[in-house]
């Protein structure tokens, strides 16, 4: 084998999965993702890395804060957002990056975030880079011409939005109808909490200990994207199912937590020899 062909073969094999931890680290047992990914791909090195903010040099800080402030989605009906970031938005992003403020509640364009993170991380082909973030991310859908919240934005790096696990997949339809009715009547927090408890178990809320299982499934999807560019499965009981409803998310990631037959077969071929097929 010539040296050139050896290096090509090596460059096509997935050598490492690097997971950049979120800013706040509020998910219980978050570090259990390392043995999980390691158990699926035993030949791949799994590295847990600090949050993005900790990797930014002082001299980059203003420029990255400005890019993040510009990545906000203020009008979900517009693919591109054209506005100058405000004084306070820049200040907020800088404080988040420096660990003085907490990320959350703001919606960012996932594709722009991917570009920003890519410039910081400079991902390599043989390493699957995955960023866990406390930011809410969306992508614009050409189907209905609006932004939609996402749990995962597959790319280089892939981005897993932890609040997205709660906010992105829709809760049961009746929940929204009842909530809307209560809000028209001026219901407060107490009534909303009562409403949530009446739907208990049918969707994930903040602090739910089951969330870590969903994080693992999303990481799995991100690694599959890196290997095949096809992260999702159409079968509802498969862990690679791209759930748009909370009940489907719970079914695929927690109740079933398995791969379908086709993906089990595919994984069997991939796990001992994870070749990047693109």
């Amino acid at each position, binding site marked *: 084998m010539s040296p050139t062909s050896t290096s090509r073969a090596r460059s096509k094999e997935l050598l490492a999965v690097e997971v950049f931890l979120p800013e706040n680290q509020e998910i219980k047992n978050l570090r259990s993702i390392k043995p999980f990914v390691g158990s699926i791909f035993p030949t791949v090195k799994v590295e847990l890395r600090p949050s993005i903010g900790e990797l930014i040099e002082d001299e980059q800080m203003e420029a990255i804060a400005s890019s993040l402030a510009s990545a906000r989605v*203020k009008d979900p009906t517009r693919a591109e957002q054209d506005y100058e970031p*405000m*004084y*306070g938005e820049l200040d907020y992003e800088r404080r988040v990056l420096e660990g003085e403020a907490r990320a959350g*509640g703001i919606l960012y364009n996932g594709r722009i975030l991917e570009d920003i993170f890519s410039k910081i991380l400079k991902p390599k082909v043989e390493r699957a880079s995955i960023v866990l973030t406390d930011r809410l991310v969306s992508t614009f859908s050409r189907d209905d011409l609006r932004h939609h919240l996402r749990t995962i934005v597959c790319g280089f790096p892939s981005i897993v939005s932890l609040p997205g696990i709660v906010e992105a997949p829709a809760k049961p339809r009746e929940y929204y109808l009842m909530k809307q009715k209560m809000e028209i009547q001026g219901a407060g927090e107490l009534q909303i909490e009562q409403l949530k408890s009446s739907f208990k178990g049918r969707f994930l809320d903040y602090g739910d200990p089951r969330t870590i299982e969903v994080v693992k499934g999303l990481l799995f999807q991100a690694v599959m994207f890196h290997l095949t560019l096809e992260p999702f499965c159409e079968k509802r009981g498969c862990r690679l199912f791209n759930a748009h409803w909370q009940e489907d998310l719970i079914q695929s990631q927690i109740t079933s937590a398995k791969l379908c037959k086709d993906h089990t077969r595919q994984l069997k071929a991939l796990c001992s020899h994870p070749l990047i097929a693109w």
Partner: protein
Amino acid sequence: MPIFEKSSESSVTRAIISQFAKDMDGFADTDVIVIGGGPSGLMAARDLALKKVRVLVVERNNYLGGGFWIGGFLMNTITVRAPAQKILDELGVKYKMYEKGLHMTPGPLACSKLISAACEAGVSILNMVSFDDVVLREKNRVAGTVVNWTPVGALPRNITCVDPVALESKLVIDATGHDAMVVRKLEERGLIKIPGFGAMWIEKSEDAVVEHTGFCHPGLIVTGMAVSTTFGLPRMGPTFGSMLLSGRRGADVAYKYLKGKK
């Protein structure tokens, strides 16, 4: 024997006028002007006053407290999420735990205690006075507000042709709720462009309100629901805990700025 001591009508009038004139003399130039006497404004004002900062709250209504008197659906139980109950502890407001992390208390109790705490801390209050405009200085820094009596704005202009007065300050805090009146005034002047409410409903947006509390323009800090409007944060329901914490953060930001200036 009469219950009350003797006093003439003229003495009563003089007492009112002399004290008010003295107060207005102090208000003409102060450290911080808070526009809006709701929970976030009162909280910010109280925290600053406790640190010996001269603070004036301008409230357009006769009463202070904004929406803090009453909870959802016109029921006067208000709820506060942890850790904001620590502020209720500081204010001496008794509350009950509804469930882990969620506390409830009567609105009139919490609101009256907050007003009392602000007054006792030394906050000055101009009620029945409405914000009219901003005072701008070099590089369009906000350096005070223009105010007028609230009834003036409620009557036809030909009847109440009364010019407002300007009050100078080192900082202004916009605590006017969803209206974000001070920020909107800057927008009218083309100095800032605000997106308004975010259209998406996101359950956990109250954190974002607290985290975005701070300067939105040189000389101007936003607190409370005005933060939501200013930064286009997602819509949120009534969450008084975040109003109290936002007020506290606004005071911290203001205090650091004032301390740095000295």
